[in-house]
């Protein structure tokens, strides 16, 4: 049996990911591409929201979409059918995109050509919040049927978001949902979060969201 000794390491497990993420943000800034990391539960309406958002913005901006899923290509196919430039990324079983996967997808997709790059992350309110992808902003979608208590149950997701879309407001009559409580709960975790009440189905509430988003894109890309 050899000698036993203790080695001081003092290194973060996140260090490698965070370094790549920071380089990605610098690259996005240099290439004048604004990247939105879109996160939500499965079924919150990420793809529908994205399609309507792209429709509202594609006269002014050149837009690309990266669809991240554990498997399948249904989301990228929906984007392609709508005439939106898209790439499907498979995480190989991992529950969220990390900075390295995002960088590889950006290289493959040649993202410098886009003014806005949307990344639809894996549907999940836990893992995507824990990993910095290098995006310019994080946006979460919470839909009315999921309930107004989600910011209590998944605090980190609402801490790391710059904006939250409360989606499916057209379903209000079927589900109890307290607008005031959800705003208070989100702002309790993140006082600076912008909150927009929208319906990706009808387009209600989209004007303010689009105005906020396009203002941020112009600021980033100038």
């Amino acid at each position, binding site marked *: 049996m050899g000698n036993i000794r203790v080695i001081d390491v003092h290194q973060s497990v996140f260090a490698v*990911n965070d370094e790549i993420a920071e380089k990605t943000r610098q690259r996005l800034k240099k290439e004048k591409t604004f990247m939105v990391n879109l996160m939500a539960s499965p079924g919150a309406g990420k793809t529908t929201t994205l399609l309507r958002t792209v429709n509202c913005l594609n006269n002014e901006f050149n837009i690309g979409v990266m669809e991240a899923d554990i498997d399948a290509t249904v989301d990228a196919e929906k984007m392609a059918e709508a005439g939106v430039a898209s790439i499907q990324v498979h995480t190989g079983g991992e529950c969220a995109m990390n900075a390295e996967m995002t960088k590889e997808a950006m290289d493959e997709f040649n993202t410098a050509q886009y003014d806005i790059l949307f990344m639809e992350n894996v549907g999940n309110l836990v893992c995507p919040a824990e990993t910095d992808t290098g995006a310019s902003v994080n946006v979460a979608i919470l839909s009315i049927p999921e309930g107004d208590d989600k910011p209590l149950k998944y605090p980190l997701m609402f801490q790391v978001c710059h904006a939250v879309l409360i989606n499916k407001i057209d379903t209000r009559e079927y589900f109890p949902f307290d607008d005031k409580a959800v705003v208070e709960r989100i702002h309790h*975790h993140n006082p600076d979060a912008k909150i927009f009440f929208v319906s990706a189905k009808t387009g209600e509430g989209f004007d303010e969201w689009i105005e906020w988003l396009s203002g941020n894109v112009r600021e980033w890309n100038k």
Partner: protein
Amino acid sequence: MHELPVTQGLCDLVVREADRAKASKVCSITVKMGAACDYVPEILQEYFDVLSEGTVANGAKLQIETVPITMRCNDCNKEYETPHYNPFCPQCSGNHTSMITGNEFYVDNIEIEEE
């Protein structure tokens, strides 16, 4: 399942450091985990045992030490410890606060056996 990617990162880091130190075996790993990280220590250990198979780190015991959540108010400079993330300053009630500790997940040290 959110412990899997972070355990892979942990395993890579430990193997790199153990190789650099020319270790023949890693006996234990001291990890400092912020109280806001909701990783389950038993699951970290289970994943680690599988992910480290065939490496010098296989068989190492993870010693997880919790780091409390501390926040600082950017308005009045008050520093406070809190059991859960709380962005509201207990002194001035302002909400311009930053988390100082509580989100970290790092390897503090490793105990190795030398050849």
